[in-house]
């Protein structure tokens, strides 16, 4: 009798030892229990929540000294799992691959003076974020510390880039655009000569970690930008042949960040794309292109998509807020070609 009690206690102690000393790693979405010398039958992995213990579908394999669990779906970081091996139990969780606290690295436009008819902003985060439930946590605050409600367009789908680090926010277009009832009755959310701040609150990264503190972007507002970008007003700094110096374009006014990244390209005379890197400077008023290979003493061409816009949505084809028939071209997205020579 006594012996059996001692045996039970000893075996439980052994379980605890397994949990204590077991090295667990994740490789190619497979969980590896290193140096596994516990039972190899009746194996199962469970997810443990406050209310439930959920079986994780997958298969086990003994590889040399290790036990390898191949789950049917990738396992998650930082949630409680339990391995049952016969009568033994190992509680474990997988360490988050990145556990730094997320932060806002920049808000575009980076200028601190913005037009009344601002249409879009981009919030750049330091790491991948959860892609739902964020718009309620981003607020526009006026000079009196009051929230300007209904300013940010509460879209059903949030507009994230593929890396889940950049969120697009749109100022409600029905208030931005003149002639619409919301604009006429409520006015624009942003008023000329007033100061505002965008406060980014408790948004979470993919592991549920919040910003250390709210991020604040302060800016003051000037009259509406009712001038479309125009390639005729651009100033160019041409590179030298046999160098990797930058081709630069200086704009009169701020250009939308995504437009700078995606709507200007460089080609050679044979219509081959010149690869390189884009550098956005001077509060989005300068676009620089550094080629991967040296410039040749040849003719090149800049191709610009006429959808290139400013932060108020005015593009090379016309104003965001335009009358019928006033667009330069009925079909948007026409490519404008600007030839240049490198010598």
């Amino acid at each position, binding site marked *: 009798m006594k012996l059996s009690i001692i045996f039970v206690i000893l075996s439980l102690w052994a379980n605890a030892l397994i949990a204590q000393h077991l090295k667990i790693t994740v490789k190619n979405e497979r969980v590896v229990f290193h140096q596994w010398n516990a039972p190899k039958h009746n194996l199962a992995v*469970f997810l443990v929540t406050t209310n439930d213990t959920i*079986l994780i579908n997958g298969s086990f394999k003994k590889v040399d000294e290790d036990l390898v669990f191949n789950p049917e779906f990738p396992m998650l970081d930082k949630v409680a799992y339990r391995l049952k091996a016969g009568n033994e139990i190992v509680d474990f969780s997988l360490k988050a691959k990145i556990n730094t606290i997320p932060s806002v690295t920049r808000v575009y436009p980076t200028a601190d003076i913005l037009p009344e008819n601002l249409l879009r902003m981009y919030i750049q985060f330091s790491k991948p974020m959860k892609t739902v439930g964020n718009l309620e946590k981003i607020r526009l605050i006026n000079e009196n510390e009051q929230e300007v409600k209904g300013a940010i367009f509460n*879209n059903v789908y949030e507009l994230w880039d593929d890396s889940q680090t950049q969120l697009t926010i749109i100022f409600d277009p029905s208030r931005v655009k003149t002639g619409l009832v919301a604009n006429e009755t409520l006015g624009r959310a942003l008023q000329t000569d007033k100061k505002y701040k965008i406060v980014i609150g408790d948004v979470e990264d993919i592991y549920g970690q919040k910003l250390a503190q709210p991020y604040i972007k302060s800016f003051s507002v000037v009259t509406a930008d009712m001038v479309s970008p125009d390639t005729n007003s651009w100033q160019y700094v041409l590179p030298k042949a046999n160098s990797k110096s930058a081709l630069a374009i200086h704009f009169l006014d701020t250009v939308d960040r995504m*437009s700078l990244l*995606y709507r200007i390209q460089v080609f050679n005379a044979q219509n081959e794309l010149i690869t390189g890197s884009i550098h956005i400077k001077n509060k989005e008023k300068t676009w620089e292109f550094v080629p991967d290979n040296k410039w040749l003493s040849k003719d090149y061409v800049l191709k610009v998509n006429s959808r290139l816009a400013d932060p108020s*949505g005015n593009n090379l084809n016309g104003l965001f807020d335009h009358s019928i028939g006033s667009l330069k071209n009925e079909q948007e997205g026409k490519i404008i070609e600007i030839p240049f020579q490198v010598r």
Partner: protein
Amino acid sequence: MKTIPRLSLLLVAVLSISSCKAQHQKGPNPSTTKITTVKNAAENKLTGASVLAFGPDNVLFVGDSKAGMVYAIPTKAREVKDPIAFNLKGVDKKIAKTLGVPTSELIFNDMQVHPVSQEAYIAIKRGFAVDAPSIIVAVSPVDGNVRLIDVSKKTQVKIKNVRTDEFELYGRSSDRLNITDIDYNDGYIYVAGLTNGEFASTLRKIAYPFTNKQEAVAGIEMYHAVHNQKETRAPIRTMAFEEINGVSTLIAAYTCTPLVSIPTSEIKEGNHIKAKTLAELGYGNTPIDMITFTAQEQDGSFDKKLLIINKERSASLISLKDFANANTGEGMKSFAMGPEGMKIFPVPMSGTMQVAEQNPMMLTTMQRDINSGSVDLVSELKGAYFRLSNFDSEYEFPDYKYTETEPWKDFHNMVKPIEGYPELVKEK
């Protein structure tokens, strides 16, 4: 000195026993639990599943915003003809269990009802990670079981991003199209979406079956021309095709929030289309979903309805007769705060995330329970457009007696068993 190891041994033993206990009380027994529900999860995984739509021969269209693809997945289904209601409160827990994650890791993207089996097909992203897979699950109204849909036999088409075709450069991910709706009509699927980098009014038209020719994807600029003679670059949020006054017509709700019509025949590549604005659904609102269906009226007649679920406001119910009447005119010339333009009945469906027609009697809705935060999959009767069991009323007081002339008694007694509460049926 000697007591320390003993104490720790005892502590370890107690902890082990308690964890064993917890396991035995709550967990399934691995020796009796059938481990494999799916042979290979690769058959179930998609890179993304944002929007669902059923097409010809019960093919399931899936819009994947992440990959910029539309998939067509053949489905097999056992026919269910009876009107069996969904009463699955907390369906998120059930799905989470099937997928082996906490409910907090499920992102619900869309729901459609299979036209033959009445199963609810739900598009889910499993986890928040960038590379987390998306899964389609089907939930049966007959037994409430959750099964994973095999997506391996799909055909697919890459959506040509008309904005960035020429600009997929320098190794970055492109300006992404977020697909907001897909509809099939007469040999084509129509894809609406909004991009990160531009507020534009582009609709895509893709021939189905897919030809895998990029040319098959037409980019269509669509404007609505009220706004005191201003036109807008606003994108379509949700849409449906219907025959209006004998003409195949696209009904679309824009993001801010006019309801427009456009003859389907005009939706051609290169056309600069001006849609007719017929109604304003109301400022400060985002339409989530739009469906059309036939419902029986109180007088026994049948009427075709347009139902639009909104994010902030009550749902908008419109008779297609009123829509057709409005469509014979020139459309709205100026805006009011809305809703206006035609008869728009507000129906109490706020909290509804998705809606689909289930059978001649019922709609299926996916709702977020405001109190518990759980996701419910529940049917609602056409004509009622609410769940009796969602409301506390004096009718349920133990001492309440229906009067002889009480008009609601029969309705309540019909609805209670449908909603899963047959024991609450009152004789008096």
